[in-house]
């Protein structure tokens, strides 16, 4: 009996190791290639024959194709603004729809659900023309506007969390003479740390991971203006890939480091926020 259990356990972990290694192959390839001395795609060997740090150095050099420093700063700038505005918008809408029982609440929430069904790619075309009419294409301000303006629509997760906050707390605060605004800032906000951290990180990540909007709005071809995602995508153009593939990998590794850290922090809050809400309610 015991040996049978032991064999089962070993088998279980062998399967796990196989699964994990399957899942890690691309990541290992990414990191390995980023150190490769050969600039293009190495089509004969998985691991590079010669190792070098030059790809990382090239990212911060003066090459306009690999203008990584500018891209990183651009994205960082946009991400910071986006993070503040989107978080405020999302939390504000979530609080209003969860705590204030005003007349237009239900119709408004329905409209929000319907709007969410429209593919973003569709409205993007006319968003582009609106920005063009305002002379905001090829500006970071325009791109930031696109990321932030309709962020209020993503309120559902935060609302689900707010719904689980006991109403008696608000009533007590009201009896003590606190205004709604004060209740919001001094009582509800501290209680909702998980969902607020989640919202902050996810809105910070949007500009780092978005590809479509950036490509559409920053289309002038001046690499100083780009964000990380379009910059890296551009390195894989047919004429460039053979001299930039390893540098692309190095860029991918560098972007992934801060994003992974934030992501790992966020996923804890995500799971807490969502399932806490789902079950308590």
């Amino acid at each position, binding site marked *: 009996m015991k040996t049978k259990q032991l064999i089962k356990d070993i088998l279980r972990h062998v399967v796990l190791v196989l699964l994990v290694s399957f899942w890690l192959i691309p990541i290992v390839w990414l990191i390995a290639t980023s150190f490769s001395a050969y600039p293009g795609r190495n089509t004969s060997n998985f691991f590079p024959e010669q190792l070098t740090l030059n790809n990382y150095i090239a990212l911060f050099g003066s090459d306009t194709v690999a203008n990584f420093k500018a891209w990183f700063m651009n994205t960082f700038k946009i991400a910071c603004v986006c993070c503040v505005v989107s978080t405020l918008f999302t939390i504000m809408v979530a609080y209003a729809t969860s705590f204030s029982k005003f007349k237009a609440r239900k119709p408004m929430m329905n409209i929000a659900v319907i709007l969410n069904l429209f593919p973003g790619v*569709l409205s993007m075309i006319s968003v582009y023309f609106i920005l063009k009419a305002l002379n905001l294409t090829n500006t970071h301000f325009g791109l930031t506007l696109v990321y932030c303006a309709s962020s209020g629509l993503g309120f559902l997760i935060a609302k689900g969390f707010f719904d689980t906050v006991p109403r008696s707390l608000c009533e007590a605060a009201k009896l003590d003479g606190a*205004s709604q605004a004060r209740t919001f800032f001094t009582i509800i906000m501290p209680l909702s740390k998980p969902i607020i951290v989640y919202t902050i990180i996810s809105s910070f990540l949007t500009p780092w991971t978005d590809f479509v909007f950036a490509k559409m709005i920053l289309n002038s071809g001046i690499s100083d203006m780009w964000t990380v995602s379009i910059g890296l995508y551009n390195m894989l153009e047919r004429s460039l890939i053979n001299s930039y593939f390893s540098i692309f990998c190095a860029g*991918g590794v560098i972007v992934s480091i801060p994003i992974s850290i934030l992501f790992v922090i966020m996923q804890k809050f995500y*799971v807490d926020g969502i399932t806490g809400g789902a079950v308590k309610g």
Partner: protein
Amino acid sequence: MLFNGVIKMTTTDTSAKKETFLSSLGGFFKDFIAAVAKGDFFVKLSVIWWGAGYIRRKQFIRTLLITALEAAVILFSIYFAPQYITKLGTLGTVKMESVFNLETMKYDVNNYDDSFQILLFSVISIAVWVVALFILMKNVIAVYNLQLKSKRGEHLNSFVDDLNALLNEKFHVTLLTLPVLGIVLFSVIPIFVLILVAFTNYDQQHMPPAELFTWTGLTNFINLFGGGGLSITFGYSFVRVLLWTLIWSLFATFTTFFGGVLLSLFLRNKRTKLPKLWRSLFVVTIAVPQFVTLLLVRNFFANNGIANTMLRDIGITQVLQNIGLIPSDYIPFLSAPGWAHVMIILINIWIGVPYQMLIMTGVLSNLPEEQIESASIDGATKWQTFRHITMPYVLFVTGPSLVTDFVKNINNFNVIYLLTQDVYTTTNQALANSQAREVDLLVTWLFRLTQEYYNYKMASVIGICVFVLCSVITLVAFGLMTRGDKEGVYN
């Protein structure tokens, strides 16, 4: 609660809600008419001069503010709106022409019409007027209430009281104003504009500012659904792209869902050592941004990529070639129909399973443990427990999110675009004529139509189709789910 919230909003009270929404709108109109009919002279006057009712009650700051707002609306209606609204019927008639001016040695451009600007600013003007009408009516009702209050000798709210109210009972107004404004400008108006574009001939031959476009009625819809002559193959492509979109969403949603459930069950099993370590290793794969991993994987599986080299070295390519599965000495992972379809779904499993696993870990940590224990005491097998306790619970909690995942996958732009753009070219002439490819989803087709072919009219029609598809699926699925209301079982 979150999920319950979603269900409630979309279905349970759809019927009740529609009534309340319409009836509240009706009530609003009734209030307005009553206010105009029963109000005194100043209330009646405030239909024309918005500040009238306030000046009667000696509320000067309010009078000033609302009059300034009215003035702004009037100026907007005189100086801005007419130049566009008047041309909405034709979308402009004067084409851009440039004449070389010998005196200044420059090209003089005539005062041409820009069809898209006419469309866009007309929609904006109409939106402004709708809001202005609403404010007008709301204002009349408010002034009438003031009149009633003063008649009863009650305290009238001063301007300072108003400001206080914005932090108290009207706090939601303070909170919602900016976000709603953003949504209207960057979601609602664009959607309206795009819906209108579907009824025009806005494409590469009709590109403002150089050319005009105009209304064409239902022509684009007829083209899409197959009535459009021999050269246009949009109908043919639409059916194929739609079919693949649905197949893709179905597979993408269910493979990652069940993969996630199985993986997280596997990891949370008591006999698995170091579950946290394993979990983190899986999470690493999704922490790397999608555009990096997808572009990387695409090169991994390129025709002359490393995967092909390795398979050729082992001799698998040779075997496949011998049995006639592939015509070349490489495997066209992402460049031939069939192969590409399967690869896309497989690569999506690689991306999606860790993500689902994360969510499932949270969901499963709230499993009804007592039920499982009592089941195992009663001698239930593992499969029975899974089938009759775990799965129903998981489906109950995540059912609604499964539907939203399905809809998200219909619109899953990133995976398809980043994996196949520049790599996959179709050999099917009929598809190529309408700029579609076998692996395109409706959204990627739409995107490429606009980005590469400037065919805005067809893109808009496809966009409307995507919306209809998504809403039908959502409504039907939530309807089915709420029919068997099992909320009581787990609460």
